[in-house]
């Protein structure tokens, strides 16, 4: 099925470890986004991209990095994981001014 695919679904990291959350879409969307969702806090934008090779910071970029080498893929890198990065991470993509398509999320716990 067409859509946004995120891997892994669950991950436990130790403090200081690093990891990459993968996101791929097959809808040929130019725009891709990474959000984190914490209880009672809504979705907060981490990074976004308007096309291959172009990325920009959102509201909460500290501790994260992204790259966009292809239209399809938009990985999110966590360096030196901290407990504050425990959250559910959602990747999304969109065409122009229409609704986002979200992935199913990655639940990350940092201990």
């Amino acid at each position, binding site marked *: 099925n067409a859509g*946004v695919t995120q891997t892994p679904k669950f991950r436990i990291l130790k403090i200081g470890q690093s990891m990459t959350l993968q996101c791929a879409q097959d809808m040929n969307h130019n*725009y891709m*986004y990474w*959000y984190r969702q914490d209880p*009672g*806090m*809504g*979705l*907060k*934008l981490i990074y*976004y991209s*308007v096309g291959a090779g172009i990325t920009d910071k*959102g509201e909460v970029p500290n501790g994260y990095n992204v790259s966009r080498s292809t239209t399809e893929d938009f990985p999110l890198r966590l360096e030196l994981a901290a407990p504050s990065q425990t959250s559910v991470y*959602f990747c*999304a993509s*969109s065409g*122009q*001014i*229409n*609704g*986002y*398509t*979200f*992935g*199913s*999320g990655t639940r990350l716990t940092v201990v």
Partner: protein
Amino acid sequence: EDQVTQSPEALRLQEGESSSLNCSYTVSGLRGLFWYRQDPGKGPEFLFTLYSAGEEKEKERLKATLTKKESFLHITAPKPEDSATYLCAVLGPNDYKLSFGAGTTVTVRA
């Protein structure tokens, strides 16, 4: 900065008991207001986009309306399968980033 406030935080309804969710927003030059449904453990699912004050959209038991300051999501005669968190988001004039509210969690009891 765009601001979106949703109320109430939680809503418990009896099956068939109609109600409304509120989304108040502050954005200079609204390009679109979006409603999403999110089930536990899943990503948000797109419901509606509203573009201008006075616009209304319907889907099954859901109806979304828009004014210059707020949007309402009306749930008519809800069923247990309407239980979910409903998210509101706005798109400002100069970019493609949605700003989300914290959501309203709706529980419908049979």
